């Protein structure tokens, strides 16, 4: 079915999601993500899916949670302000192990900020935006093609690990049009349903996410955001139940980090001058590295869970580390976990929808 199209990242997401089997979308308009919603409204009914415009983002995130339990792969898309409103719902999805994909097309914040201007200010929020001990997966594409490919991956991860996946995309990628090959999914993860004796919220090996019942099939499943045991029964008192639950929810992600965590190296893999980046800043970084040579680009695809050991390994022996970000410094906290703070050179730029140019990176590389 391979098709070569000229699409914006927002449009690519829609086709990727549909090819990944997404059949439910609920959302609320917000720049710069609205095109995802528009195209979903058009395309989903053509493949038998359902689209609904919610009254707000609180409703949107909760609608997709309901739809996911009813058996459909579900997603929503939004931008900063809407993403902030979705936090409580995302936490509920983590707690109830509901597979979801949430696209956040990042614009310049805080608050209303500059609605049409690209940024990368929601990185930390994507990881930590909700209360309590909760762990999910965050993925960032770098091109419209990747928006297509990685959204499929996002659905696969969501289904495989029963976890919400935040798809963190810079506005540049959302609105930028490029060639996108609609190549279909290599593999699609099929949701595993439990047998009668398999609990839907527990497994002996925390690395193995429990199977997920579908509503209406006689499982009599109890879904709750309160602390619960493996059968879904609430236990709002016990230490063991809580600790076992939250550590399992963490471990099912972090103990599978080898499978989930992805990054790519560009430029000179042996160079001691290293750029660490994600999203739209990567292409200027790669460009810069190619132009000046002797530079390695470490480009994170998975932003959470983050394999700090791998990061440390890749940065071991680094002479100079440069971290360009379209924000005031967030990824740099990760780099500083494994590399001395004082030796990191940052490039922080945000506002007006102006990218970080290769020349700016080169200046810092060569300084």
């Amino acid at each position, binding site marked *: 079915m391979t098709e070569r199209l*000229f699409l914006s990242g927002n449009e690519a997401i829609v086709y990727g999601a549909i090819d990944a089997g997404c059949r439910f979308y609920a959302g609320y308009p917000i*720049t710069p993500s609205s095109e995802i919603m528009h195209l979903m409204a058009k395309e989903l009914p053509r493949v038998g899916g359902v689209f609904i415009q919610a009254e707000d983002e609180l409703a949107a995130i909760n609608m997709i949670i309901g739809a996911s339990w009813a058996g459909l792969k579900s997603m929503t898309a939004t931008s900063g302000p809407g993403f902030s409103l979705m936090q409580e719902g995302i936490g509920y999805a983590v707690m109830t192990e509901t597979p979801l994909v949430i696209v956040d097309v990042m614009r310049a914040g805080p608050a209303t900020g*500059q*609605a*049409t*201007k690209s940024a990368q200010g929601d990185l930390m929020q994507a990881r930590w935006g909700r209360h309590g001990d909760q762990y999910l997966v965050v993925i960032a594409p770098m091109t419209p093609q990747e928006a297509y490919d990685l959204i499929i991956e996002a659905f696969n991860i969501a289904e495989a690990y029963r976890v919400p996946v935040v798809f963190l995309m810079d506005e*540049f990628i959302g*609105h*930028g*049009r*490029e*060639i996108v090959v609609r190549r279909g999914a290599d593999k699609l993860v099929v949701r595993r349903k439990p047998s009668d004796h398999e609990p839907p919220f527990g497994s002996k090996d925390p690395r193995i996410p429990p199977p997920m019942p579908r509503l209406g099939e006689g499982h009599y499943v109890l879904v709750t955001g309160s602390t619960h045991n493996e059968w879904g029964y609430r236990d709002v008192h016990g230490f063991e139940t809580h600790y076992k639950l939250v550590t399992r929810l963490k471990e099912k992600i972090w103990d599978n980090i080898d499978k989930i965590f992805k990054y790519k190296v560009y430029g000179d893999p042996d160079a001691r001058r290293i750029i660490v980046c994600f999203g*739209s800043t990567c*292409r*200027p970084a*790669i*460009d810069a590295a*190619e132009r000046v040579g002797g530079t390695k680009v470490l480009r994170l695809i998975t932003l959470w869970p983050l394999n700090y050991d791998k990061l440390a390994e890749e940065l071991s022996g680094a002479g100079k580390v440069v971290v360009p970000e379209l924000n005031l410094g967030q990824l740099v906290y990760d780099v500083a976990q494994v590399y001395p703070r004082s030796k990191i050179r940052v490039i922080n730029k945000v506002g*007006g*929808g*102006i*990218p*970080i*140019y*290769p*020349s700016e990176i080169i200046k810092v590389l060569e300084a």
Partner: protein
Amino acid sequence: MRSAGFLGMGGQGIVFAATVLGETLYRLGYYVAQLQNYGASVRGGAVYGYVVFDEDEIVNPFIEELEVLVILHEQGRRRWENIVRKSEKIIYDKDLVNPVKNGIAMPIAEEADKHGVYRAMNMVALGIASRILGVKGIDEAVDEVLRSRKNYELNIKAYGIGLELAERARI
């Protein structure tokens, strides 16, 4: 990697011009990236749209200098001075834009108005850019793309005016 872009203000159809150019080049088989920068919502504000293209995959579409840049409004010029300063061939509207160093002034709005396609000034600009780029088969491809959109007659007429303007100026 080659490139062309447009600068102007909200309402002038800058993004549309860039999109049409992008889609045209895509149809011609190039690797293309088309980017834009525009305001939210209600009207006004500077708008910028451009296209980079190549026979190979595009490493990085975030560039600071364009091969061809057509400027349709002073607002755009002012906000994107950096780009203007570094670009190669710059065409600007003689009435709506203050003189640009090393740029070529053209009566884009005037001609558009004269021919009753004032609303499609962006297509005049596209015509100019096309001609300067001189990519093989571009006019036919533009025609095809425009046919798939609203207001084909208006747009193709304006495009033609652009071609002519560029030819007249022999750039």
